[in-house]
Each structure stands twice: as structure tokens, then as C-alpha cells.
């Protein structure tokens, strides 16, 4: 356990080195955030019907959270170093270590995610909370909301990493899994509510998305923060997220083991 933790710390510190890149990233996120908000705003201005599933200020908070935690939850993340290891065969060194490969890489990816986020989320949220009017990022409705949000955020991070591990398992199987992961990530981005928030989708589609694990990595924590999801539903959703996390983590570990058993080391 200690080994996994120190590896996680190593990646965290390495990621924090690129401070200039982080600032540029923050600028990028504000550009993007404002763009998305302006599109929603234009739609809200044009709507005549009053029964909108989210208030406009909730949408703004949703977008800022999305921007702040972009790197914590992205499902399409690809660590080229690991992919390179698999295709070039240097993964054999990794296998020589007295560690299980799955938790080892899981810790590494988790560390990268946190490093990318720690630097970014604080400034993004701080600047967003200084904006005027409905655009402003505000605190969650109550203390229990805040606590449950933190729990949901943690589970979401673990879950996103567990889903992300399938990229590497697929690469073991297919060697060049770029295309396959691109297809999966394109769909999962849509299914997690990253393109448009789930309440804006038709009811039938919403039911489907509620069954899948993807919404727990974006839609659920963010919308819960904005107060769009009531407390009791939030508790149930959190339980479902934990269930998905357990299932996907174990499934990933088993599949990785099986993939390794039949893996052929490429090259010399």
C-alpha cells in the first residue's frame, strides 16, 4: 500500500512542475466555459416555455465545475508512456516488479489526474466565484450538500480512473487501440453529460443514462452541487456510484490479469 502511495505522490509532484502550462490551461478553460454558457444563455433567451429542467444559474455552476474538474474526470485520457510500454514491450520491466500491475497503474493514473486538477480547480473556482450575477460560482446550498458533494467527487474520480483503465486493457488486446478507445470515449463523453447536461435530453434517453455508470463521473456530482438533485436521490446515486466503482475496478483487475496471461511481448 505504501508503495502505491509513494508512486502516486511522485506523479503528483512531477505534474505540478508545469506551472506555465497550467496557467495557459486556465485561460483555455475560461474561454471554453464562457462559450458554453453563452450558448445556453442564447437558448434560454429564445425559449418561450417556462418549464426548463435547470435554472440558468445552476447551468453556470454546472459549467464551472465541469471546467474546474476537467482533468479529474476525463474518460478519454491516454498516458502515452504506458501505451508505449505496452506496444514496445518495455512493459516487461513493469511486470518484473513485485507489484500487481493493475493497482500499480491505477495509482499512477490517479496521481496524474489529481496533479492536473489541484493546480487548476482552485484558480478556476476562485475566479468564477468573482463573476457577476448568474454567472457566479456559489457555495452549495447547505453543509450536508457540501459533504455529500465531496464524497461524490471522490467516488467520481476513482470511477473515472477505473473506466480509464480499460483503455490500457484494450491496448494489451489489440496493440493499437487508438481507434477503439476513440469510439468508446466519444460515446462516453456524451453519455456522461459532458456535451449537454442530462436534464436537457429527452426523458427516454435520460432513463438509459441513469442506468449506465458514466453519469456518475460528471452529471451526478456537478448537478448535485448546484442543488438540482434532491438530498435523498443524491444518497441513492452515491450508493449506485460506489457499486459501479466496485464492479468496474474488479472487472478491470480480472481482465487485466487475463490479458497479461496471453500477452505477447513485442520487440526485444
Amino acid at each position: 500500500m505504501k508503495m502505491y502511495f509513494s508512486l502516486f505522490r511522485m506523479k503528483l509532484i512531477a505534474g505540478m512542475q508545469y506551472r506555465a502550462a497550467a496557467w495557459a490551461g486556465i485561460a483555455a478553460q475560461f474561454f471554453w466555459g464562457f462559450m458554453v454558457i453563452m450558448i445556453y444563455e442564447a437558448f434560454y433567451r429564445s425559449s418561450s416555455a417556462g418549464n426548463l429542467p435547470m435554472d440558468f444559474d445552476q447551468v453556470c455552476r454546472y459549467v464551472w465545475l465541469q471546467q474546474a474538474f476537467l482533468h479529474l474526470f476525463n474518460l478519454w485520457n491516454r498516458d502515452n508512456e504506458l501505451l508505449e510500454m505496452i506496444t514496445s514491450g518495455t512493459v516487461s520491466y513493469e511486470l518484473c516488479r513485485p507489484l500487481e500491475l493493475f493497482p500499480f497503474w491505477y495509482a499512477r493514473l490517479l496521481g496524474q489526474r489529481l496533479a492536473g486538477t489541484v493546480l487548476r480547480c482552485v484558480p478556476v473556482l476562485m475566479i468564477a466565484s468573482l463573476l457577476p450575477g448568474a454567472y457566479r460560482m456559489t457555495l452549495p446550498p447547505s453543509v450536508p450538500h457540501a459533504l455529500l458533494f465531496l464524497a461524490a467527487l471522490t467516488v467520481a474520480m476513482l470511477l473515472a480512473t477505473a473506466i480509464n483503465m480499460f483503455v490500457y486493457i484494450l491496448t494489451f488486446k489489440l496493440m493499437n487501440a487508438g481507434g477503439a478507445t476513440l469510439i468508446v470515449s466519444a460515446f462516453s463523453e456524451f453519455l456522461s453529460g459532458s456535451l449537454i447536461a442530462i436534464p436537457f435530453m429527452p426523458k427516454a434517453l435520460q432513463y438509459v443514462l441513469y442506468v449506465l455508470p458514466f453519469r456518475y463521473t460528471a452529471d451526478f456530482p456537478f448537478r448535485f452541487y448546484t442543488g438540482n438533485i434532491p438530498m435523498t436521490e443524491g444518497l441513492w446515486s452515491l450508493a449506485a456510484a460506489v457499486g459501479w466503482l466496485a464492479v468496474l475496478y474488479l472487472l478491470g483487475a480480472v481482465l487485466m490479469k487475463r490479458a497479461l496471461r496471453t500477452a505477447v511481448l513485442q520487440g526485444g
Partner: protein
Amino acid sequence: MNAFRLLRKYISMLFQSAMEYRASFWLTAAGHSIISFTSCISLLLMFERFGQLEGWTMWEVLLCTGAVQTAFPLAECFGRGFDTFRQLVRTGGLDTLLLRPRNIFLQIFGWRMDFTRIGRFLQGCFVMVLAVSHLPSLWFPAKLGVLALMVLSGAAIFTGVFILGAALCFWTVEGLEVVNILTYGGQEISKYPFDIYKKPYLVFFTGIIPYACSFYWPLLWLTGRSGSAWCILAPVLGLLFLIPACCIFKLGVRHYTSTGS
């Protein structure tokens, strides 16, 4: 003429090498087209909920989106060398290119191309055709010509931004994420007519990085919102952007000192 033949040679070589891994090629192409597809679906779902967008109908916006999604992959495919230019700088590969007695732009274009973007390109074409078929006011050769002009001019400007981003590598070695805002962000923002955004965005994307010239202004003419000839000229005027972009790149080449590895 010689340069043209060389470029054709480059293209056929790169295409052949991409075709060596056929299954992987088509899977990646499918992946790219699905990215465009889900973004179009999102747009349709928003229109289903809201009906219209500041007076723009769904098909009009979809026409704009289709044009952007056709133009951008063209730039991504042929401008790939500039998009990934920092690898040339970091590995010192640029030295090899500079030693050859050929135009540097031509060589960078020929260094890399990404044909998998054909997935996104076809998806964009499909969306445009679908939108045009629902907008009978566009069924005139002149209007379709302007639509084609929008796509070509857009592709050229996206390529120009790739070149500008590549030029930045001469000073920073690492590529900057800021450039991604202008390319991927530019693609995203141009999908909707610019008048739904705040005014400074329209000014910036008309005067500095002229995406609005390629997409928004001619769209006004296509949908009958404006009769001004400037709207038709805008895609051509936008091309002026390529001049400073190429000059800055040339300046960068002069300034270049090899990283030495």
C-alpha cells in the same frame, strides 16, 4: 509545377503508409466521425427542447455546423505537420528539412498528414447535405458555390492557425495549450452563428482570427438575413490572415537554433 508534383508524391506516400494498418485506420476514422456525430446529436437535442435559437432555425444552425465540421478536418488532415510541429523542433528533425533545397512549408505539409480525419469530413458533408435539403432557399448554384467557398476558406484559416501555433514553438519549444483554444475552441465556437455570443467574440473572430469571415458572415447572406456583397467577399478577405501567419513562421525559422538532440 515541380512543387506540385512533389506534394502529390508526398500525399501518395503518406496515404500508402496509412493504409498499411487498414483496420486501425478505419476504426480511428469511425472514432473521429462519432465525435462529430455526438456533437451534432447534442445540438439537435437542444433544438428539440428549445425550438429555435435567437431566430435561427435548427437547419440553419446545422448548416453552419456542417460547414465547420467539413472545413476543420481538412485542415487537420493536411495541416497535421504544423499541428504536431513541436516534435520536429524538440527532436531536431527540422534541421534535416532545412538542409534540403526545397520550400520549408511544402516539406512540413509533406512531413505528416492525417487521413483518418476523413471520417469527420464525411460526417460534416452529410450534415451539410441534410441541412441544404431542408432549406429550399439554398437550391441555387450561386448559393451552393458560396457554401463551398465557406468550407475552403474555413479550412485555409484553420490551417493558418496551425501554422501560427507552429511558429510559437520556435520561442517556447513546448507547444502551448493556448493554441488549442484557437483551433479546437475556434471550431467549437464557429458551429453556432456568432450573433448569439457577446459582441467582443464576434469582433475578435472577425478581425484577428477570422473564423467569422468564413462561416458567420456568408451564412447571413445564405439565409437571406443580409444582401451585402461584403458577406460574400468575407471568406476571401479572411484569407488575408494567412499572410501574417506565414510571415511569423518565416521569422521563426530565421530565429531558429537547433535544440541539438
